[in-house]
């Protein structure tokens, strides 16, 4: 069966593409799938750091494309999870070093004996984004419940559709339930009203992400992390399981709903 090649992109930078790519990769590997996480952010690589594998990089994706290394030599196996491998980006070069055709060919080669290829896209909508998009047969858009992130996501969804790679699926990342309840933050419904694509997952803002990035220990490995749990749910949905979406209500009650109704920025009922 052909590998599922999923590009994770967003438009806006800093919304959590790399964290999402790493954690979905981990969660899929925990489910026994053979995963390669591919960092397509040439020149600004981060996926290796988030996965805690930066010390093991010898060759990167540009080395493979330019023939200095075989794919086998560049792929880094995660000792914690044998089913997970990383193909790191180059830190010295830039996006012009990798053309869309290069990545398409590479993913065909990788896809032979893997189940999933997760491509961590660069931010933006120019050539880095287009290159990351080229090999994919599925696209995940990551956004934050915040107006400028949603605006950029909308643009990217339009570009993905125009490139014939749609429809994309959405992950709403860094949701803060307390702010939503106060009416100070968009909720998932507000975001979906504009973006109008299928929801794949909701990930709450979680301190454990910062800690896990600094330690190179993806949150999906941490049973106690709420964000980690969300990523594990996303992986299950990708594998076809019907996992209900998290509601994150601290204490859902009539009082909270009434408070939202009358708050200055809240939507009217």
């Amino acid at each position, binding site marked *: 069966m052909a590998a599922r090649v999923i590009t994770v992109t967003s438009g806006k930078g800093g919304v959590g593409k790399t964290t999402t790519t790493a954690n979905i990769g981990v969660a899929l590997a925990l489910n026994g799938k053979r995963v390669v996480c591919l960092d397509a952010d040439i020149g600004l690589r981060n996926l290796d750091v988030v996965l805690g594998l930066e010390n093991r990089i010898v060759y990167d994706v540009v080395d493979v494309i330019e023939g200095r290394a075989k794919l086998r030599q560049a792929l880094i196996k995660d000792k914690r999870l044998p089913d997970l491998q990383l193909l790191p980006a180059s830190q010295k070069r830039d996006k012009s070093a990798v053309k869309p055709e290069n990545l398409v060919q590479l993913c065909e080669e990788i896809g032979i004996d893997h189940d999933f290829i997760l491509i961590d896209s660069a931010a933006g909508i120019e050539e880095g984004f287009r290159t990351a998009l080229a090999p994919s047969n599925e696209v995940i858009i990551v956004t934050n419940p915040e107006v400028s992130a949603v*605006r*950029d996501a*909308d*643009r990217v969804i*339009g570009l993905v559709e*125009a490139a*014939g790679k749609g429809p994309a699926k959405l992950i709403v990342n860094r949701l803060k339930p307390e702010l939503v309840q106060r009416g100070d933050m968009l909720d998932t419904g507000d975001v979906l009203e*504009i973006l*109008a694509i299928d929801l794949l997952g909701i990930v709450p803002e979680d301190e454990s992400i910062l800690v896990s990035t600094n330690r190179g220990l993806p949150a999906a490995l941490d049973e106690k992390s709420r964000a980690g749990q969300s990523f594990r749910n996303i992986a299950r949905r990708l594998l076809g399981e019907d996992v209900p979406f998290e509601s994150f209500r601290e204490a859902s009650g009539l009082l909270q709903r009434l408070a939202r109704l009358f708050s200055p920025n809240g939507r009217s009922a």
Partner: protein
Amino acid sequence: MLKIDPKQIVIKGIREGLSVTLPADQAWANALAALEARLTAAPAFFKGGRVALMIGPRALSEDDMRQARDLLARHDVTLWAIVSEEADTQRIASMLGLDVIPSAQPQPARAEPRAWEVALEDKPQPPSVSIDEWPDAGLVVRRTLRSGQSLRHPGSIVVIGDVNPGAEIIAGGDIVVWGKLRGTAHAGALGNDDAIVCALDLSPTQLRIGSHIARSPDDRRRKPRPETARVRAGQIIAEPWGGT
């Protein structure tokens, strides 16, 4: 000196943008002068658009074509194709990197739409109509416009779907959005202050009718309801649907 009548320039909305027909019986310099007059009369309509130029039976030199391209570029319009059946003209156009549309029929053979224009290929094609012959003829589009997409038509435009923030609609005629209008809309963009903009939820970031401009009031608590915007006493006002 021939009097220049901008109406000699026929503008149609086609799938890939606009087609502009130059009068066949004029010297090239006069035809370009008429085109310039038309562009100057309605800059808001043309700015940022893409044009296929129908030059008639002329044989154009490279200089002629460059002149046309530069003239359009000065008005922020991109010349992307020449419509001509003349072999030498076609050759020169290709050399300059322009598409060639061989027949007078304005539908180009291009397969994929460009990312920043709305893809209309899966919808029945609207009749290609000149604004001067049939000012109310409209374009109906059944999709949501996303941020960065733009829709431009010399007649009226109906969108069955939403217009998201960052999307824009520019119509010579009226604009009707059967959905939420949250992007920018410019009705009457060819110089018609009587045009209207209607939407089920009229919340554009910016609204223009003819030469007038307005932005939505900052009242977010307002319940969305169908409204029509029009110019009254020199200002754009929005009225609830049900008024005439």
